[in-house]
């Protein structure tokens, strides 16, 4: 499923797919024909060969079709409301992946670097805790569902208050 919205000068691309993604192609699409972008941040999440220290052979990602796209789009909108972004791309894979495979790509573009960094970190924290995806790992002992991490919830909670309140609270 693919959503492509051109809004004023902002481009949002959201895709859920089984296929691998090409970071360079996605960044090229994000910045093509634009000379107002000063900063591009990409985050690539990859399948590691271990889960909590135990070797794994593969990772299978289950998702909630329909809701996953909606949740990601809502958070992309939220990122655009918080920071002066010129483009956002989120690609999340599902299905069976092996160590070294890319799982998720977030790319953000802005005139200045702080907005691009903050928005990419924000989107990743939300994808980890709010986007309806579930990971199952294949280990020597069998398959197991990955437990949600308290550290991921804490990371997402950083963004709960709007930026102005967070600044004032420091």
């Amino acid at each position, binding site marked *: 499923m693919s959503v492509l919205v051109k809004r004023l000068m902002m481009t949002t691309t959201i895709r859920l797919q089984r296929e691998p993604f090409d970071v360079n192609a996605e960044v090229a699409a994000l910045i093509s024909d634009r000379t107002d972008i000063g900063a591009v941040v990409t985050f690539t999440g990859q399948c590691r060969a271990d889960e909590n220290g135990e070797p794994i052979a593969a990772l299978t990602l289950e*998702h*909630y079709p329909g809701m996953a796209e909606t949740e990601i789009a809502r958070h992309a909108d939220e990122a655009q409301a918080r920071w002066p972004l010129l483009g956002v791309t989120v690609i999340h894979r599902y299905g069976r992946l092996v160590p070294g495979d890319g*799982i*998720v790509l977030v790319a953000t573009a802005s005139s200045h670097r702080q907005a691009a960094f903050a928005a990419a970190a924000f989107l*990743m924290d939300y*994808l980890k*805790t709010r986007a*309806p995806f579930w990971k*199952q790992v294949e280990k020597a002992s069998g398959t197991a569902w990955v437990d949600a991490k308290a550290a991921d919830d804490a990371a997402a909670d950083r963004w709960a208050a709007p930026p102005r309140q967070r600044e004032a609270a420091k």
Partner: protein
Amino acid sequence: MKVLYFAWVRERVGKAEEQLDPPPGIATVGELMAWLAQRGEQYAYAFENPKVIRAAIDRSHVRADAKIAGAAEIAFFPPMTGG
């Protein structure tokens, strides 16, 4: 209403989705989980600890006290582990 299950909730229930018509007394997501838990061994296992189970109504996250009236699609799943 259509009820969907994901990840280990789906595995425990033994199906990915079903059409259900809960009795009129079932007003909230929490009550729906309690009602589901009584439908048999597999449901009892899936919903044995309802506090860890997340829910969505019509593809939006909701809490256990959310009203289910008018819902077309309700989903139950473990905490998300994407990204």
